[in-house]
């Protein structure tokens, strides 16, 4: 159990700023996901905590102790790499035991700890296997075991499931979460998979261009994204740009009454919050495509100015291409100047098309 404090950390590569003035505290036993697109600085930050990159500025403390000057081998961290990074000239047992051997532990102690960690990751009896005889998922479990066996204070996971298929990824992330919670190990987890972050994290840190866009529990990040970037990055989101006039937000095909001051605004509506009903007349939009996912149908609706929005609806014969539909807008989020200004249901739905606006569908 340990507490990680990252304060004002920056990293500059020549003229490029990878991480800028990053501050975060990770509590004992907490699993925090660093989520962001490629190049957002999340892996660089993780590598700085692991000791593989030296910050240009700032401080990194574990349990109050500054570790920034320590080389990777002296840090109380354990890292699991995206490519597993197993040593192919060693079998599974030797891979896991390597760190213990370096610490000159007695042979019996090494055997006991390796067998215990193999059991923890569900690989009992695999010790004598060579790494290339294992599947991708098993290799990742060995990589995890190799870190866990040393009982690090902080576990660092650098996109550990990126090279696995979807099914295996889902299974493994549940296993990793179970193990992390059972051991109560403080964990920093880098991913660009929003599903992974939502499924595993106690808190999500959304990063963009080396800076924090939002920090919060998954439900908050999903339901109340702090910026349009977060809204667009987490899950599917319809982002509609328009203008508020006398508390009515309007864009082509859609108008919604929201209690905010007049001016330009961006409206964000999740597909599940954008209900559809068959239009009696011309309708607010026309169905462009409906994709049946079994549990629901994802419908692309084309607005009068050609932009498309997504709506998630239960399966029905009504959702066929070319059919005019009306919108029933549920929970909405509004932004102005890159900041959240309103979250909630619209006050009163407006059915008339209005004004010049830009409509953008994200997803």
């Amino acid at each position, binding site marked *: 159990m340990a507490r990680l404090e990252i304060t004002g950390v920056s990293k500059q590569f020549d003229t490029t700023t990878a991480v800028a003035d990053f501050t975060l505290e990770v509590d004992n036993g907490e699993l925090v996901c660093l989520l962001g697109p490629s190049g957002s600085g999340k892996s660089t930050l993780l590598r700085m905590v692991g000791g593989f990159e030296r910050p240009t500025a700032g401080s990194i403390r574990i349990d109050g102790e500054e570790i920034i000057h320590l080389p990777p*081998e002296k840090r109380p*961290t*354990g890292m699991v790499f995206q490519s597993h990074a197993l*040593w192919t000239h060693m079998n599974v047992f030797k891979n896991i035991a*390597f760190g213990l051997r370096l610490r000159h532990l007695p042979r019996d102690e090494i055997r006991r700890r390796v067998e215990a960690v193999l059991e923890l990751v569900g690989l009992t009896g695999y010790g004598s296997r060579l790494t*290339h005889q294992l599947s991708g998922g098993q290799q990742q479990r060995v990589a995890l075991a190799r870190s866990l066996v*040393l009982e690090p204070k902080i576990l660092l996971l650098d996109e550990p499931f990126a090279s696995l298929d979807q099914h295996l990824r889902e299974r493994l992330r549940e296993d990793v979460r179970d193990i992390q919670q059972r051991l109560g190990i403080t964990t920093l987890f880098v991913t660009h998979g929003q599903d992974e972050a939502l499924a595993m994290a106690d808190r999500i840190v959304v990063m963009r261009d080396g800076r924090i866009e939002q920090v919060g529990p998954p439900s908050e990040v999903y339901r109340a994204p702090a910026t349009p970037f977060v809204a667009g990055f987490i899950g599917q989101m319809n982002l509609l740009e328009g203008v508020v006039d006398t508390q009515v937000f309007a864009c082509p095909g859609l108008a919604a009454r929201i209690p905010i001051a007049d001016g330009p605004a961006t409206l964000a509506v999740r597909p599940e919050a954008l209900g559809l009903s068959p239009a009696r007349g011309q309708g607010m939009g026309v169905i462009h495509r409906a994709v049946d996912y079994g549990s629901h149908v994802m419908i692309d609706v084309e607005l009068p100015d050609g932009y498309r929005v997504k709506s998630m609806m239960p399966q029905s014969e009504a959702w066929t291409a070319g059919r005019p539909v009306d919108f029933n807008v549920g929970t909405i989020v509004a932004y102005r100047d890159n900041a959240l200004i309103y979250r909630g249901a619209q006050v009163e739905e407006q059915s008339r098309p209005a004004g010049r606006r830009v409509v953008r569908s994200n997803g």
Partner: protein
Amino acid sequence: MTDLTQAAASRLLTDTNHNRRPWGLLLVAVPVFLVGWLVIWPTISAIARTVWRLDAEGNYGFNLSSYVFFFSDQYSLNNLAITLWTTGMCALLLLVICLPIALYLRFSSGRLPAYVQGLAIFPLFVPSIILAYAFIRVLGPNGMVDILFNAVGLPKIRTPYLTPWGPVIGLVWDNIPLTVLILLAGLGNVANQSIEAARDVGANRLQVFWHIILPRISNSVLVALSFSILGIFSAFTLPYLLGPASPEMMGPFMQRTFREVNDPLNAITQAVIAFGFCIVFGLFYVRSVARNRGG
């Protein structure tokens, strides 16, 4: 897929394999023929000529006297010993010199490593004979170093060029590029994350080298040493121009026995013995390649 289509597909595959087989064999036929003609046949012929010979009565028979002579003649044995010593010393020095260079080139980035690589590869473009004369002009008696020492009042140096170290220095210099290139290729297969993972579990730089890097490049080390040893053992130009007149390495020894002493039988015997040593290192290389191909 129905049984019918499966059977058709299987037949097609089998037919394709049958059709391709002669083409594959034809492609390798020419090099195999050349190796047989220019390497294997002369080897067999040389061995046969040294062990199946005419005796004094004009009858052909099994005769090992030339080998007995070689292994009982102190001069021949000294030559073999100096060849083995030179080869072993060169192999050791090449490893000690080239491995740090290759490690530096693999794990550094920027302009300086590029220049270092250029310098390390440079001897590849210098013919051995020029290298030997450059060595003599710099380190030989009245060479540049000698003159410089003399100019500042330092005592005359005992040049290594006429000692057994002469060929060692020349051959090491000559073999640095190939050794560095092979080691560098091997180090290219060691992923950065493998090294970072080792450091992450507590290995310092030396432990990373010993436990992670060295086992992963052992094949490349073996290949590099096999190539160098094969070349050095049978080297001619550098040992001919550098080093003492006696003992001499097997290359000049064979040439002198054949041309100056006009004793083809003993020259061939020396060649067969040299080949016997070389083939041991060759087998190391073949085994290493086979192990690589086997995964």
